[in-house]
């Protein structure tokens, strides 16, 4: 007669594995189904990291806090502010090119009376001046002020030349663009790329227009 072999060792550990797996999967599933966390980061879908410093608005330097413009309870249809953040270096050729070619028409489009955004939606640009520190390049608040007026920009320029926010936002090169929804979630990140050709295309598509 054949006799089935029973392994006591395997039985003890299999029972333990089954119990532990069941309670872990059950607990993890409940947490996954009842929460939807946003982690701070600069990838699309993340909560934008903090951005705080002094900004030049064309007349004076004042304190700017990104957090003050964020409403974490915001949902589409509610009033809010979309913010396009550009990390740039006043000496970088590509930044100067973008400042000359892209920003004047963009600010006319978004800030003017013909802005496609509905009345309750506000659109802001924020340029953060960082320091790539190539030899011979000049930095400082006067350079930021001069850069802004040179291209007739109408938005705030933040002094980020201590590079604290360059590191927090993990900016690898300039110019880098991020589009932040009113609830603080990153909707477009140029370092990450994505399905949009550039930040302007992302803004056109993601910011609701008055007709909607």
């Amino acid at each position, binding site marked *: 007669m054949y006799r089935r072999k029973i392994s006591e060792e395997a039985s003890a550990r299999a029972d333990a594995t089954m119990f532990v797996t069941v*309670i872990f999967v059950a607990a993890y599933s409940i947490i996954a189904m009842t929460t939807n966390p946003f982690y701070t980061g600069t990838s699309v879908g993340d909560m934008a990291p903090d951005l705080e410093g002094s900004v030049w608005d064309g007349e004076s330097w004042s304190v700017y806090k990104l957090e003050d413009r964020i409403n974490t*309870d915001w949902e589409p249809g509610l009033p809010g502010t979309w913010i396009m953040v550009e990390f740039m270096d006043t000496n970088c050729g590509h930044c100067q090119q973008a400042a000359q070619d892209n920003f004047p028409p963009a600010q006319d489009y978004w800030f003017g009376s013909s802005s496609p955004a509905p009345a309750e939606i506000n659109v802001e640009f924020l340029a953060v001046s960082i320091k790539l520190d190539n030899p011979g390049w000049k930095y400082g608040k006067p350079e930021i002020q001069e850069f802004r007026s040179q291209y007739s920009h109408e938005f705030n320029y933040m002094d980020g030349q201590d590079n604290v926010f360059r590191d927090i936002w993990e900016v690898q090169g300039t110019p880098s663009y991020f589009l932040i929804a009113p609830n603080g979630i990153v909707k477009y990140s140029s370092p990450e790329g994505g399905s949009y050709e550039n930040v302007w295309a992302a803004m056109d598509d993601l910011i609701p227009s008055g007709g909607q």
Partner: protein
Amino acid sequence: MAISADTQLLFHWIPILLGLTLMSPWGESLGRSISAKWPSMETKRGRTIGGMLLAMFGGFTVSAHTYWIHNKAKEIGSGDFCAGGGIWDCSSVIGNDEWNTMPFVDIPWGLAGMLAFCVFLWLTISISKGLAETWVSAYIRYGLALGGAGILIVMYLIYAEIEIGKLCQYCSTAHVSHLIATYGFFSLSKMHGTSEWGVGMMDDARAARKERRKTRGYIAPTIKDDSEE
């Protein structure tokens, strides 16, 4: 009616305190009263293992709750899930991005706690079901090592709470549970190899075999005897 965060915490304390009582000298009478259902509760070894399992289960559930609070705080951008204002304010600790994840691996402490208590539970359940096996002493050592490493982590987290200036009642509950579990492994290591470990072991083994016979649906194959034909 919403239950306050401190009241919710009591649900985690119930198994922990029950486990601690079972492991303490007062656990003897409690063990006797439930020994009809669980015969191993008659022995000190059985009460220690039972108490450890309860304390670890409480530690697991409070860790899961902490992880839930962490995620919820990330979802809505604030963390009014715990009593605030006083020194006991878990929102300020779990919601603190500088301290609320494990260094290097970057996973939330609640999830780390869930995983740690799962390992503890796995070791303890394995020991409870294989009391006479050769690997039991090794498993007790693993439990002790994990407990010791965990105590260092608990100390690090207490340091974090001091830095933040607030105490997290949920985290502290998990810490207490961890200490009880570590003490449990220490007690088992003292018992293992002594006569205390063997008390009632045959009864346990018999009960386990009986239980297995009762629940399994295995039908042993038989071979016809040639002589019968």
